[in-house]
């Protein structure tokens, strides 16, 4: 037991080192044990005064603390000084032991699914265009959730007044939906064949053939630095109606 020996070894060493403090090594050890137990059992970090109140009077608390701290220095648990008080804490490098990953299965809301579908089929597409297809305004939250899935991305800015951000799908989108390329998304006839569209759709009803190529279109400008954050917020401010829609639609 290397740790124990280390510790046991300390007392005689100290005794040898200085005769003044050598005498009460059993007492010293007992004091160290008391301090250790107090700090271990306490629900809160303990300050010097709190320790003093619980330990016998003549105990040299600072000396004991620094000894205990050294004893635990290389260990799995360390004695740390936090906010002027003392507490045992798991060593920083072992924090990963106390972490567990939990994956939560979440389902996309209908609004998010619809928005995602429009982005997939109509990309590159702006928020205003999504709203036009859906017939309702789209909350920023919906776009945010989709960005979080990693399935959509901001592609650029449309070269029109207001220079709105254009959205498109990502490779992760293709991965998730097991699509080889975005052009594999079924077209009008296939949707109808699958019974997803009934035959009563108007004559001018079109299902675009999607294109997620990285290359910007002629009417797209690249995103500027900072677009990732600042401009989304800007959009949010302009689309005040978005939040209302979120609740009404479901």
């Amino acid at each position, binding site marked *: 037991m290397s740790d124990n020996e280390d510790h046991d070894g300390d007392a005689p060493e100290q005794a040898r080192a200085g005769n003044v403090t050598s005498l009460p090594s059993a007492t010293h050890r007992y004091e160290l044990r008391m301090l250790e*137990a107090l700090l271990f*059992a306490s629900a809160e970090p303990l300050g010097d005064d709190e320790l003093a109140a619980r330990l016998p009077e003549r105990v040299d608390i600072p000396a004991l603390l620094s000894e205990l701290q050294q004893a635990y220095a290389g260990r799995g648990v360390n004695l740390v000084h936090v906010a002027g008080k003392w507490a045992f804490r798991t060593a920083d490098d072992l924090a990963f032991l106390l972490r567990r990953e939990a994956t939560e299965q*979440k389902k996309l809301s209908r609004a998010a699914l619809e928005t995602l579908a429009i982005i997939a089929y109509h990309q590159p597409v702006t928020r205003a265009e999504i709203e036009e297809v859906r017939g309702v305004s789209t909350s920023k939250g919906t776009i945010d959730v989709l960005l979080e899935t990693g399935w959509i991305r901001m592609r650029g800015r449309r070269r029109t007044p207001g220079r709105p951000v254009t959205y498109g799908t990502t490779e992760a989108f293709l991965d998730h939906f097991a699509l080889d390329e975005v052009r594999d998304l079924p077209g009008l006839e296939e949707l109808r064949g699958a019974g997803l569209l009934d035959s009563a759709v108007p004559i001018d009803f079109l299902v675009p053939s999607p294109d997620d190529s990285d290359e910007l279109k002629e009417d797209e400008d690249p995103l500027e630095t900072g677009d990732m954050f600042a401009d989304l917020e800007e959009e949010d401010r302009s689309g005040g109606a978005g939040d209302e829609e979120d609740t009404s639609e479901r």
Partner: protein
Amino acid sequence: MADEEPFELPLHDAPEPQGPALVVDVDGYEGPLDLLLTLARSQKVDLTRISILALAEQYLTFVHEARKLRLELAADYLVMAAWLAYLKSRLLLPEQKDDDEPTGEELAAALAFRLRRLEAMREVAARLMNRNRLGRDVFPRGAPETVAVVRRSEWGATIYDLLMAYASQRQRNSVTSVSVGKRSVWSLADARTILTRLVGAAADWAPIDSYLATYMARPEERVSVLASAFSASLELVREGKVELRQSNPFAPLYIRWRPGATANETAAPQADEAAQEEGGRAPFTEEDDER
């Protein structure tokens, strides 16, 4: 342990076979077996060498005294008393050879066993309570570091969900635009009601458009509003209620309430029809009937 309840009753509670201590209420005992155990202790001998006969007598005396004092005794105590009376008789009477029942000695042994077992349970309970107990003598880590759970969302959606969402919303929107068109048609009755109300309230010539402006805000309704309003105004002219004027083709069409046919006069017969109900609402009632 000082802070545990004692297993033995305090001495002053222990009843003497005779004397005022008997008045002690039975509530102090955990049932007849407990009472017997307490009585047995007063024999001051090892439980294995106890005189069951003497014990039975002590118990019966206790119960007898209690009844004399009209103390309420729980049924348990009386059942035990009856059993002990039986035991006593078995112990005192000579053995009967042809008896299938257990002998008095066997019954006494059974009782002694139960007393010893109860006492043993009390002893081990005390020993258990005197162990180093968590939260009293030994302590766990006061500030345990709980395992932090890092949540990662995994979004689920199938290609079918996606296509369903796409197809259904596109279809939904292609259908709703038709139904909006239907709803935006102005009926002749609507136009007549509104014209009667608005034109009747004004005194002079005014372009008919000025009355309709607020109803033509939605472009898809514009045509319908104009057409219905025009037809309605022609009808009102035929009835002699309003006059129309137009300086030349495609010029603004002016309309006014015909002098003499005041709004009040026209309202009067309608109000009669509506059985004297609120005049303001009467035109609606009339128009509804026409429909």
